[in-house]
């Protein structure tokens, strides 16, 4: 038994000496296989950034669509109209005063005009307290023989205010006039030339119905009131990735039979989405893109096989096949300059060039790009321009891989489609 133990100890000592520092290089393809089977990272950062991007785009579109329109020419035109009508009306109403003589004349007039008011019934549904008070005042006024125009204008103003603040200008004026009249004089002595006011009002209302746009006569492209204003940009591009691969001599291994995806293969197609701002042709953009590089190669072995091919012989050196399939999600910031040229009021040519710095979302890899694009820009309307054209970018520096000794110089080529939203 003792000799057995001694033998075991001797064996243990000998084997440990031999194998304690025993190391061997694993199969080069192993890491890719392992990577393909391990759990994906919990990409909350990606989710957050995606939501941020969507939020930015959504907010931009919202502001452009609604605030831009509200502050636009329609509003300006309406204000002009109001001031004109107001002055006209003041001039006309002041000297011409009609005295209302009895209640019988006033009441039918009120009911007829109320019927004439083409106010959507839905607007009555959401009355607030203020409106209820106004209704009560209206009833009291009718009872106390207030002039018809004063009552109706007062009521109408509130209804429109409830609907969408698109106040009919003549209602406002009538209200103002009514206020002036109501304050100094008792109701029974107030007088307005109703017929004149009525004709003015109906004519003006027809011209200022809410939601009816004035036909655009100007060229949409050139009539930007302030081209130096900040515009919103949204771009999407489909890009195919290529690479210039450098195999250093001092790698200690022989590499052979490199295979890359064909020129039109979808294996290395990625996408790029950008959103940003433009002012005076300078564009600041936030980029999100997927970047794929795929190729395979063989690590040459030490055996040489001579193959007989008819009358000739070929020496083949078998190797271990390694497939590289690198996919990255990149988030980047970029700055570029765009220039436009062309004579058409609706279509122009554009060219842009810029720099971009991107960082991988899953890892801490980073990459720099120089990009350029050229194409055509079309005006959809005064506020929206669409541009489409080829897009290319390349990395000016060679970068080393993690699992192999190669140096990469990636470049991407594709088609870009974008939209520019201009605040009027």
């Amino acid at each position, binding site marked *: 038994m003792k000799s057995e133990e001694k*033998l075991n100890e001797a064996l243990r*000592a*000998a084997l*440990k000496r031999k194998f304690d520092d*025993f190391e061997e*290089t694993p199969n080069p393809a192993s890491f890719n296989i392992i990577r393909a089977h391990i*759990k994906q990272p919990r990409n909350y950062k990606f989710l957050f950034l995606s939501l941020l991007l969507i939020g930015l785009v959504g907010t931009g579109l919202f502001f452009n669509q609604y605030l831009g329109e509200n502050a636009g020419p329609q509003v300006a035109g309406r204000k002009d109209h109001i001031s004109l009508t107001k002055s006209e009306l003041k001039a006309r109403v002041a000297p011409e005063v009609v005295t209302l003589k009895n209640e019988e004349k006033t009441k039918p007039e009120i009911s007829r005009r109320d019927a004439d008011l083409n106010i959507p019934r839905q607007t009555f549904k959401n009355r607030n307290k203020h409106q209820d008070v106004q209704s009560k005042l209206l009833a009291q006024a009718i009872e106390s023989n207030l002039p018809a125009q004063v009552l109706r204008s007062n009521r109408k103003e509130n209804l429109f205010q409830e609907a969408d603040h698109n106040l009919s200008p003549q209602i406002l004026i009538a209200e103002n006039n009514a206020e002036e009249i109501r304050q100094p004089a008792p109701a029974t002595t107030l007088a307005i030339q109703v017929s004149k006011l009525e004709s003015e009002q109906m004519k003006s209302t027809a011209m200022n119905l809410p939601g009816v746009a004035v036909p655009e006569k100007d060229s949409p492209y050139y009539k930007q009131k302030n081209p130096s204003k900040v515009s919103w940009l949204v771009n999407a591009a489909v890009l195919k990735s290529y690479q210039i691969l450098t195999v250093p001599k001092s790698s200690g291994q022989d590499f052979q039979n490199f295979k890359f995806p064909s020129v039109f293969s979808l294996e290395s197609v990625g996408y790029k989405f950008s959103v940003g701002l433009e002012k005076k042709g300078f564009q600041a953009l936030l980029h999100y893109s997927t970047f794929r590089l795929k190729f395979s190669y063989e690590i040459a072995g030490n055996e040489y096989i001579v193959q007989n091919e008819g009358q000739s012989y070929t020496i083949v050196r078998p190797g271990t096949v390694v497939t590289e399939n690198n996919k990255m999600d990149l988030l980047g910031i970029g700055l570029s300059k765009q220039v436009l040229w062309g004579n058409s009021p609706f279509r122009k040519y554009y060219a842009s060039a810029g720099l971009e710095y991107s960082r991988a979302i899953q890892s801490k890899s980073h990459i720099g790009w120089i990009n350029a694009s050229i194409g055509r820009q079309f005006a959809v309307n005064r506020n929206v321009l669409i541009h489409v054209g080829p897009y290319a970018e390349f990395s000016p520096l060679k970068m080393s*891989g993690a699992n192999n000794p190669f140096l990469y110089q990636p470049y991407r080529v594709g088609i870009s489609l974008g939209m520019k939203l201009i605040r009027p």
Partner: protein
Amino acid sequence: MKFFTSNKYKSLTQLVGACQKRDQAAQTVFYDRYKNKMTGICLRYAKTRAEADDIFQEAFIRIFNHIDDLKEPEAADSWVKTIVIRTAINYYHRTTKSETLHSSLDNTEMQLDSGDYEKLMDQLNVEDLLGLINELPDKYRTVINMHLIDGYTHVEIGEMMSLSDATVRSQFMRGRNMLLKKLELKGIVHHEI
């Protein structure tokens, strides 16, 4: 500028922490740290190079997928090694249905002195010795590796392989004797030293 590359991690704890966050760059560094050593272990436990590759890949998939279970990052070295050995045990437990043990060699009476075998092994290069170990039946090879090289006790081996103490001892003795016989058959005997 580096591409698909990683940052430097100041400590093993930091590296494990990054791997637990599924940082791909950290996983690459982690893999590079252990890949050669663990390949050596897999080659000892496997019968062929191809099987060693399978065990190695399976083990690292388990390591990366279960690295959250590693509560003491400073013990990562022994944790990784244990995972690899357990994967090798499972691999042969799964693939080996019934094994024909070479009974003719089992009971061979050993005549050599312990010191002779120590010297004999020193004479062999690692590849030859590895070849002899690889030729052992799966169970014997596993027990020999675990007890003589990796330092597990019979009790620990029994727990890991779901075998009784006695069975482990028996398999170890048979495996050891078979290994010694193979050394003799290799033609290296004590009087040649």
